C-alpha cells in the first residue's frame, strides 16, 4: 500500500514523509538552543498562546532562532533543488549544486569583497558572492556549451573554470593573509547571524528559480534517455539545459549569498530521495526541496548545540553526515546496477 512493487514509496506517502521530516526538524530546532528556552513555553509562544517566556526570551525566539530556522530551510531547499536539477541536466549522480563554477565563483566574489572593500566588505559579501556565483556559471556555460556536444564538455568546462577561480582566490588570499580567517570562516558556511531581512532579500530569487526548476521536472525525465532520443521526442536538449542550468545557478547563488558554501546537501539529498521515491524528476525535485530544507535545519541544530556556545561550521556537519550517507548510497546503488 505504502510501497509499490518496485520498492518505491508511492508519491503521496513520499510527500507525507518529506513534510513530516521537515516539520519535525523545524520543531526540534525551535526547541533547542544555547539560550535554554523552556520547551513548553516555546511551543506556546509559537502558536500565539500565552506563554511563560519573558521579553528577552521571546526576542531570542522570534528574532534569533526563528529567522535562522527559516533561512536554513530556504538554503537547504535551494541547494537540494539546484543539485537535483544539475544531476538531471547532466545525467550524472555525482553532480553538486556548486558545479559549473558556482561555488568557486561565490568564493572568489566573497574574497574580493573582504580583501578589497575594507570596511564595506562584510556588508557587500552577499551581493559579491551572489554575483560571483552567477558569473562562474556563466563563464563555464559559455566555455563548455559547444553546440550539440552534449554534457561532457560542459561538465569539464565547469571543472576547469572552478579550478581556475579557486586558484585566483588562493592567490589573492596569499597576498593578504590578514583576511584569511574572515574568508575561510565564510567559506565554511554558517547560518549564524541569519535575519528575517536576509530571508526577505533572497525570497524573490528563490521563488523564481525554484518555480522554473520544478516546472522542468518532466523535461529532465525526457532528457534521461539521452540527447538524441530526447530530440527525436521533440525536446530541445540544449535549450532545456540552458534554462535549467540558469535556474539552478540562481537558486544556488541565492543560497550561497546568505550562508556561504555548504557542501554535500546538493548531492546527498536528491540521492536519498531517489532511493525512496524513484528516479522521476517530477517527484525528485519537489521532494528534494522539502527534504533538503529539513536536512539543513537538522544539521544547523546540531551545529549550534553540540559544542555550545561555540558552533561547528555547518559545512563540517553536512560533510560529516553527508560523507557516510554518500558512500552508503554509492555502495548500495552499485550493487543493484547489474
Amino acid at each position, binding site marked *: 500500500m505504502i510501497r*509499490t*512493487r*518496485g520498492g518505491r514509496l508511492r508519491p503521496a506517502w513520499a510527500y507525507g514523509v518529506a513534510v513530516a521530516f521537515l516539520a519535525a526538524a523545524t520543531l526540534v530546532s525551535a526547541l533547542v538552543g544555547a539560550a535554554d528556552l523552556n520547551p513548553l513555553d516555546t511551543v506556546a509562544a509559537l502558536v500565539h498562546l500565552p506563554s511563560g517566556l519573558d521579553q528577552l526570551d521571546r526576542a531570542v525566539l522570534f528574532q534569533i532562532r526563528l529567522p535562522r530556522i527559516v533561512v536554513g530551510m530556504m538554503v537547504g531547499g535551494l541547494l537540494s533543488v539546484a543539485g537535483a536539477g544539475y544531476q538531471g541536466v547532466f545525467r550524472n549522480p555525482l553532480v553538486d549544486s556548486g558545479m559549473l563554477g558556482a561555488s568557486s565563483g561565490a568564493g572568489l566574489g566573497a574574497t574580493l569583497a573582504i580583501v578589497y572593500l575594507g570596511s564595506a566588505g562584510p556588508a557587500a559579501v552577499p551581493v559579491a558572492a551572489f554575483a560571483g556565483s552567477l558569473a562562474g556559471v556563466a563563464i563555464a556555460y559559455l566555455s563548455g556549451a559547444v553546440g550539440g556536444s552534449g554534457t561532457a564538455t560542459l561538465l569539464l568546462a565547469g571543472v576547469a573554470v572552478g579550478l581556475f577561480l579557486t586558484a585566483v582566490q588562493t592567490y589573492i588570499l596569499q597576498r593578504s593573509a590578514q583576511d584569511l580567517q574572515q574568508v575561510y570562516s565564510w567559506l565554511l558556511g554558517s547560518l549564524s547571524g541569519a535575519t528575517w531581512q536576509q530571508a526577505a532579500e533572497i525570497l524573490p530569487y528563490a521563488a523564481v528559480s525554484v518555480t522554473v526548476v520544478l*516546472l522542468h521536472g*518532466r523535461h529532465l*525525465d*525526457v532528457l*534521461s*534517455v*539521452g540527447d*538524441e*532520443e530526447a*530530440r*527525436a*521526442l*521533440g*525536446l*530541445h536538449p540544449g535549450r532545456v539545459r540552458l534554462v535549467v542550468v540558469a535556474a539552478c545557478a540562481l537558486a544556488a547563488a541565492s543560497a550561497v549569498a546568505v550562508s556561504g558554501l555548504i557542501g554535500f546537501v546538493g548531492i546527498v539529498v536528491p540521492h536519498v530521495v*531517489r532511493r525512496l521515491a*524513484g*528516479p*522521476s524528476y*517530477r517527484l525528485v525535485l519537489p521532494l528534494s526541496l522539502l527534504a533538503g530544507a529539513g536536512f539543513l535545519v537538522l544539521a544547523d541544530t546540531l551545529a549550534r548545540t553540540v559544542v555550545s556556545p561555540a558552533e561547528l561550521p555547518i559545512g563540517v556537519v553536512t560533510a560529516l553526515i553527508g560523507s557516510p550517507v554518500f558512500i552508503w548510497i554509492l555502495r548500495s546503488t552499485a550493487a*543493484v*546496477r*547489474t
Partner: protein
Amino acid sequence: MNAITIDGLTVDLDRVRILHAVSCAVSPGGWLALIGPNGAGKTTLLRAVAGLLPYRGAIVLDGADLGALRGRGRARLIAYVPQIPVLPPDLTVQEYVLLGRTPHLGYLGSPGRTDQQRAAEASQRLDVARFAGRRLASLSGGERQRVVLARALAQDPRVLLLDEPTSQLDIGHQQQVLELVDDLRRSRGVTVVSTLHDLTQASQYAGHLVLLSDGRVQAAGPPPAVLTQDLIARVYAARVTVTADPAGHPVVTPQRPPPAPPATSAPPGAS
C-alpha cells in the same frame, strides 16, 4: 501518392560525405527496408529523416516538406527507435512508455488522461502492459525491445523509423518483433522505414528495398529485383545463392567458398 519521398539527400559529417544525393520513396503504410554493408549510410539516412542531422535535399512527408518542421511538430509525425536505445535502469515501464507522449504535450504541460490511455494502449499492443510497474533494468532483451516499440507507438506517429530493430534478439524474438511491426503497419497504416541486416528477413517483411553502398543507392525496388546473386556479390563481396520461399520471397543463403586444394605432401598416416 508516396508517404515519404526522399529527394537528393546529401549528408556530411565531420567534413566527410556520408550520403550522396540519395533518393527513394515509400508508399503510405508500406515498409521500406534499407540494406547494405556496414558503413553504407543506412543509420545516417534514418537519422536525417528523424531530423537529428543537418542535411541538404528534400524529405517530403505526405506532401509537406519536413525541413520546415522542428521539434514537437516533427516528433508527432515521426517516431525514431535507435539501434541501442537508452533505457534508464530505474525507470518503470509505465513511466518510460509515457515518455512517448512528449510531443503531444505543451511545453509546461503534463500527461493527461488521454495520454495515459494512449500509453496504456500502446503497452497492451506490445504485450508489455503486465510489466507496467517493473524497472527497465529487470526486463529481458526481448521485453525491452517491445517496451521501446511501445514508447514509439505511444507517440501515435505516421512514420516509424527503426534502426536494426532485431539485432539484439534471438531468432524467436526477432520474428515476434517483426510480426508486431507488420501488424501495426497493416492495422494502423503506419509507414515503416527500417534498416535490417538480415537480407531474408528484409525480403519477407519489406515491400520495398533500397540497397545502399558508400552513401549511394545501388538498387531500389521490390525484393526480387534487388536481392540478386550478382548484386549481392558486387556490393557485399559475399557469395550467396538466392532462392524463393513458398510465398515468393527471395531467400538469401550464404555459400561457403569451396575448400582450398589439399597440400602437396600427404599428411602423416594417410594412404
